[in-house]
Every structure is written in C-alpha cells, then in structure tokens.
C-alpha cells in the first residue's frame, strides 16, 4: 500500500509535468488533439492523487506503524473517526491533503468545461497544473507521507523497523470538529486556486470581455463559503477545546486564514463593478492574484516557523520551497500583467461619491486596509528585524485598534451599499431608503444607552446592526410587495418567490444579515467576565447571576485516556438550572492532557467552565467565564453559509428588473429558460454548470 501510494504520487508528478508541457504546446500549435491530451493528463493527475490519498488512509486504518507518518500520528486505541482525521494532522499528510482537495477542484473544472472555451481552457489547465506541480514536488520529494521507519543495528546498517504502537494523535485534535474544520478551511485555501487560474489564464490568453468573471463567480463563492465556514469552525474549536475562554487571539495562523478571506470578500464585491460597469479590471485581476498569494502564504506560515504562534511549528526547511514558489508565482503574474496591461483598460469612470460604485470602492479599500494591517501585524517581527535589526511583535491591541473601526465602517457600508443606485443616487432616494432603518438603529442605541450601555463601539455596533437588519428587511418587504400586488400571492410566498428569482442578490442579503449577527456576537466581548478559584466539594463560586456549586470529583479510566471529571450544579437565584461537567483527560500514549470545557450556551450568554488543573496541594482549580452573545457568532456563521448556498442556486426564473439600473443582477446564474427576454451585454452568460 505504501509503495502503491508513493508510485501514484510520482506518476501524478510526471503527468502534471506533461499537462503543463502538452498544454503549452497546445496553446502554441492550437491542435485539438494536443488540447485534449493535455486535459486528459490533468484528469490523470487528479485520479492518481486520489489513489495516493486512499492508500494513506488505508495505512492509517490498518495500523501500519512501520510508516513514519502513521506511527507519529496514530495508535491502536485511537477511534476510527480520529484515525481518519489523523491523516491530515501533520506536515506531510496535510500537504497531501492540500493536493487532494485541489485535485477535486481541478477535476471538476476540467470536467465541467471539457470541450468548451477552447481559447481559454488550455491556459487555465496550464496554470492549475503549475500549482499542482508545486504541491506534488512537496509530496514526492520534500515531505513524503510514505516514508518508512528504519533503525540502525549494532554494525550501523539500517534496516526497516516497525513500531509496536504509534505515538497517538495530539489530544487537542481529538475533537469531532477536527474532522470538519481542516478540510473546510483547506477547501477554502485550495478553492481560490480556481479563480486565480482563470484570471491568469484569461490575462495570458487576452480572453475578451468579462467572461472569465462569469465563469469563476461560482467557484469563488464556493471557495469563499468554505473559507468563511473554516475560519469560524477554527474559532469555535479554539473556544470549545483550548479552554481559555476566547475564540480569536490574532494568532499568526488565525490571521493567515483571515487575510485571503478579506481579499476574497473584496473580490466578490468588486467583480460586480466589472460585470456591470466594466470598471476596475486591473484591480480585480490583482485582487484574485493576491488572494491566491495569501492562501499560499497562509499555508506556509503554518509550516515554516517564520513567525512563532500558539500553533507553534517547528522550524523547517519547507519554508524555502514555499517562498520560492510564491516568488515565481508573483513574477509570472507581474510579467503577464505587464505584457497584457492594455487589455485591462476600464470602460467607465466614477461618476459620483454617493453611488453603488463608490460604496464598492470604499468597501474594497477598507477590506484591503484591514488585510494590510493584519499582514503587517503578523509579519511585524520579520519586518522589524529586517528594517531595524530588532525583532518586535505586536499583540491584540494593535489588531483591535485598527480592525474594530474597520469592522464598523464595513457594517455601515453593508447597510448602505446595496441600496445605493449605480452611477448616482439622489437625496430623495437616500431619505426614502435609509430614513426608517436609521431611525430604528438610533432608537435601539438610545434604549441601550438608557439601560446603561456605555461602551462606544458596542453602542455603535448595535446602532449599525439594527440599521443594516432593517434595510435588509425593507428590501425583502418592498420586493415581495411588488410581487404580491402582481400575483395576488401572500407576503410569505412572495418573499420566497422573490428570493428564488434572484438568488444572488437576496442570498447576498442573507449573508449580510449573518455577518451582522457575527459582529453583534463579537461585540459581546466587551462585557466578558471571568473568575478563577480553588474549589472543593461543597464550595461555591458566584459569577454574574449564577452560583456554581461544586458537588463532587471523580476519575474514570477510558481506553485511550483517564478522565478526571468535576460535577458542578449551577444555580440562578436559588433555583437549580443545570449541571455542568468540566473534565480533564490524561492521554497515556502521549502523556499529554486535554481540557474538556463545559459550556452552557444561550443566545444571551455562555457560561463557560474550565477545570484548569490542580494546585500543588491537589485541590482542583475552576475557572469560570461569562461570555455574552458568543452564540450569535456561530449562528451568524451558519446563516452566512446558508446565504452563500442560496446565492449559488440558479435563479428559478429570470424576471425583468424592478429598477433599470439593476438589469444585470437578474441574469446571472444560468441556466435560463428559453423564453427569457434576451438582454444585451456580457451579463448573459452560461456558467457551464449544466
């Protein structure tokens, strides 16, 4: 199985080399047979990577502890689900996993567009194969997961040596969410390769119009959706498992996942400028490029040991490979841009400050500033060492100071942007669209102030959150009213009709609402409380409205670990409301311990109880946190994902626009029925998802 896997990887590498060589030859000669042959090589690469992945999984499930990677990350008593997740728990496996997920995307793209867009696809295929070659180089020659263990005998001759049992999986990773979070986040990272390949391919091919944008829109949304979900799952894992009461620490690895999300979000918005108005072509191309670079940077930050992090990675030579790849990719993009820059000229200029265009410009500016701030904060030690010779790091205050105002401004734009008209918006329509929502926000903030809320940013967040929610509701209401007046259907079914007719727009509103919840949830941090004390049976701790009553303390032996569990009764007033069981686990194989946090979560607040350890005298220490509103973040995340999925659904039936300026919006998301009135412009596109 191990030989099978490593040969599959080697063969995949050579197929990828052929896919590039054949692809370039196909571009130069335009011979259909070569185009087909290069594409088939692309398919072969993907299938071979799947086989290699399958064989690595098999090695885990058959407990092959003669394999270095399996022995380091699994053991016999590990439950099947964690044997599955252990596949990507370490360097080598996670790199293969990168290749694996990328190959799923590549396969889907090659398959979906087989025989279509003959001017563009060979270029896209070459770019994708180029990215695959890099990762296959890592899989084959730098960090192979298929290495066997060896030992030297007395005369110094190496021979194969299997371990009786593996060293086990890191306890912090033995958590069901770990089966979902890394694949999700990696699907985000890898997914941005597709828009990158299309952008670079279209630039190299000087492919006319905005077609590559229509082709990649869904791929970008899929990648974005995975990235959003992956980031939030990571935050949730940190919250539920690490036991420090928080979910975001501005750790380099967290930042690494946030950066491509920020540029990806900017791109999803600014493409609309290009689709509708033919503006910002250069900007969009570079946004896609940067998003891809940041994905590669993020992947390498977690592995190269350049910046120290909670996820603390060993210094490893692997960083050089990533920097080299990044350097080459940037160089290729620069050259491609320089040679074809005339192809990216804008059709239009900005007409007015109060327009959809300018709101997108500000949205992009602010997201990019956030990204630059996060990037410079993350790389501060590296930068300061290069500039001044001393290594200086910056902490959460730096990130919070910059990013909280940015978040507020973004929230404001979220409410304002979608309701502004293209080109120019009149004062009259501003009053009509924003008067009531703004009033609602101000009233909410005033009530909160009267009730004793004094934190500036939280009040502002509440005001804007209510404002955005009301603008979104008014959009749904207004659209539904028009439909209901025309068809006589009731308001509820009109809302659903409205949404299904233009999933992109209304899905987008739902995503916006999800983000409002996320922001509201984050703003709760301002009111977090926590308390730590040594406790024994019978003792009590008061936090907020709750009283924690320590009842007893027991220890049980499980197959893989020993669990020490504390039983706490939670009282509110004098009434018993629930029992909580914070726990610590000691894993025999790795001699590591893990904390199982007990969380009681409501939309209003989380009661988060940690068994923090024992004092030298043996008394257990309990650390309790009261974190308001946290659950809104997770709920908001779910809504963001649902909204994105909705936006991916093709429109049920195209309709004539309610507002002339919005014409384009209604037409994306083919397939379209034949009777739809044909409107001019590049907006009429087939997505190739048929």
């Amino acid at each position: 199985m191990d030989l099978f896997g490593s040969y599959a990887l080697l063969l995949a590498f050579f197929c990828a080399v052929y896919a590039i060589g054949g692809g370039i030859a196909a571009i130069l000669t335009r011979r259909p047979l070569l185009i087909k042959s290069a594409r088939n090589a692309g398919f072969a690469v993907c299938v071979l990577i799947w086989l290699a992945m399958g064989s690595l999984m098999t090695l885990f499930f058959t407990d092959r502890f003669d394999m270095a990677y399996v022995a380091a990350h699994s053991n016999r008593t590990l439950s099947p689900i964690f044997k599955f997740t252990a596949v990507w728990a370490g360097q080598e496996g996670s790199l293969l996993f990168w290749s694996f997920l990328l190959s799923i995307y590549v396969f889907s793209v090659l398959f979906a567009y087989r025989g279509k867009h003959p001017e563009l696809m060979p270029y896209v295929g070459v770019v994708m194969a180029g990215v695959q070659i890099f990762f296959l180089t890592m899989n084959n020659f730098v960090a192979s997961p298929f290495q066997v263990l060896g030992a030297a005998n007395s005369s110094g001759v190496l021979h194969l040596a299997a371990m009786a049992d593996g060293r086990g999986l890191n306890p912090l990773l033995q958590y069901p969410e770990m089966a979902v979070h890394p694949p999700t986040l990696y699907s985000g990272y890898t997914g941005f390769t597709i828009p990158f390949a299309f952008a670079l391919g279209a630039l190299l091919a000087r492919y006319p119009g905005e077609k590559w944008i229509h082709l990649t829109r869904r791929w970008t949304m899929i990648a974005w959706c995975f990235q959003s979900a992956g980031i939030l799952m990571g935050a949730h894992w940190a919250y539920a498992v690490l036991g420090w009461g928080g979910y975001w620490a501005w750790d380099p690895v967290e930042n690494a996942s946030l950066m491509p999300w920020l540029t990806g979000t900017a791109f999803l918005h600014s493409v609309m400028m290009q689709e509708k108005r033919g503006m910002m072509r250069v900007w969009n191309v570079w946004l896609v490029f940067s998003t891809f670079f940041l994905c590669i940077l993020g992947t390498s930050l977690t592995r190269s040991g350049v910046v120290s992090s909670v996820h603390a990675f060993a210094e490893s030579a692997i960083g050089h490979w990533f920097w080299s790849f990044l350097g080459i990719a940037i160089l290729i993009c620069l050259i491609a841009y320089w040679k074809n820059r005339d192809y990216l000229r804008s059709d239009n200029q900005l007409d007015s400050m109060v327009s959809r265009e300018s709101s997108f410009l500000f949205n992009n500016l602010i997201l990019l500033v956030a990204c630059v701030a996060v990037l410079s904060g993350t790389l501060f030690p590296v930068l300061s060492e290069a500039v001044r010779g001393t290594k200086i790091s910056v902490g959460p205050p730096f990130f919070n100071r910059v990013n909280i105002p940015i978040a507020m401004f973004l929230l404001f734009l979220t409410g304002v942007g979608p309701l502004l008209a293209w080109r120019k918006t009149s004062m009259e329509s501003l009053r009509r669209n924003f008067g009531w929502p703004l009033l609602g926000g101000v009233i909410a903030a005033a009530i909160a102030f009267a009730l004793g809320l004094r934190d500036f940013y939280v009040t502002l967040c509440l005001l804007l959150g209510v404002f955005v929610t009301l603008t979104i509701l008014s959009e749904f209401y207004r659209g539904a009213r028009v439909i209901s007046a025309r068809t006589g259907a009731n308001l509820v079914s009109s809302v659903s009709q409205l949404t299904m007719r233009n999933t992109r727009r209304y899905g987008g509103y739902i995503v916006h609402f999800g983000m409002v919840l996320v922001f509201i949830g984050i703003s709760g941090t301002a009111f977090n409380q926590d308390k730590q004390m040594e406790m024994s049976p019978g003792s009590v701790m008061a936090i907020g409205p709750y009283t924690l009553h320590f009842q007893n303390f027991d220890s049980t032996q499980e197959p893989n670990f020993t669990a020490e569990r504390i039983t706490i009764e939670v009282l509110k007033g004098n009434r018993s409301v629930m029992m909580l069981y914070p726990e610590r686990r000691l894993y025999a194989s790795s001699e590591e311990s893990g904390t199982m946090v007990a969380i009681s979560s409501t939309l209003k607040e989380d009661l988060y109880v940690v068994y923090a350890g024992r004092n030298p005298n043996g008394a257990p220490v309990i650390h309790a946190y009261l974190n308001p509103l946290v659950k809104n973040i997770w709920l908001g995340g779910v809504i963001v994902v649902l909204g994105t999925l909705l936006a991916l659904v093709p429109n049920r039936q195209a309709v004539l626009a309610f507002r002339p300026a919005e014409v384009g919006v209604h037409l994306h998301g083919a397939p379209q029925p034949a009777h739809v009135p044909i409107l001019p412009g590049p907006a009429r596109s087939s997505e190739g998802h048929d």
Partner: protein
Amino acid sequence: MKFGIGAGVIIGTLACLAWVGTQESKTYYHTIAELPGLTGTAAHQRMRVGGDVQAGSIKHYSGRIDFVLVEDTKTLPVSYVGTDPLPDTFKDGAQCLIEGKIEPDGRFVAEQVQAKCASKYEPAPPSGTPTPNTKS
C-alpha cells in the same frame, strides 16, 4: 479626486490607530543569552523569550507558578503571574514562549505563557533516508 480625499482620511486615521496600537503592545524578542547584556530602557521593555522548560522545575505557589527556562546552557528563572490557566501542553521539557518583563533581581515575571501545541508540524527528515527509530 473626492474618493482620493476620502480614502486618504480613512487610511490616515487607521494609520494613527495602528501606531497607537503598536506602541501599546509592542514586544521585543530576546534570547536568554542576550538578557544579561541589556541596559537602560531595553532592559525594562516588554519582551518575549523562548526556551524549554527545565525538567522538574515547575513549582506551584499561591498566585504564581515558578519554573526555569533553558536555552542551550543558559537558564532563566521565571514566575508566571497571569490569570489564565497554563496550557495543557505546558509541562517538563515543553518548548514555550513567555511574555513579560524582567525584575531588577533578574527574575522574569511572565504574564503570558504559550507552549507548543496542536498541529505541531515536525521537520521532515531528508527524503529517501529512513528515519532513525528513536522513540519507542
């Protein structure tokens, strides 16, 4: 043009905030070997030091935890006074990063301790050669 002014104001404001944030939270990296050589303000700044926890040196007292950090042959006595429970990965021999200040008596008072954890990617052995089986 107008957009340029708006953008300038925004970027300017954020740059100021970034500068304030940097002043508030900047931390200098030092190695244990460098510490005795620091003079003047450099010796009193907030700093971050890395090393391994000396086996058997972790001692719990009320309100603080003492341990010794080792790097090569140099050692540094540390008192952790933070309120957060120490990470599970913090134990004898663990690689860790501490953040805080040096007291006049040479003891490092740490407010934060990070220990190596989670997805600890180990350096890949040179490809082609079998890994010596050092762990049992």
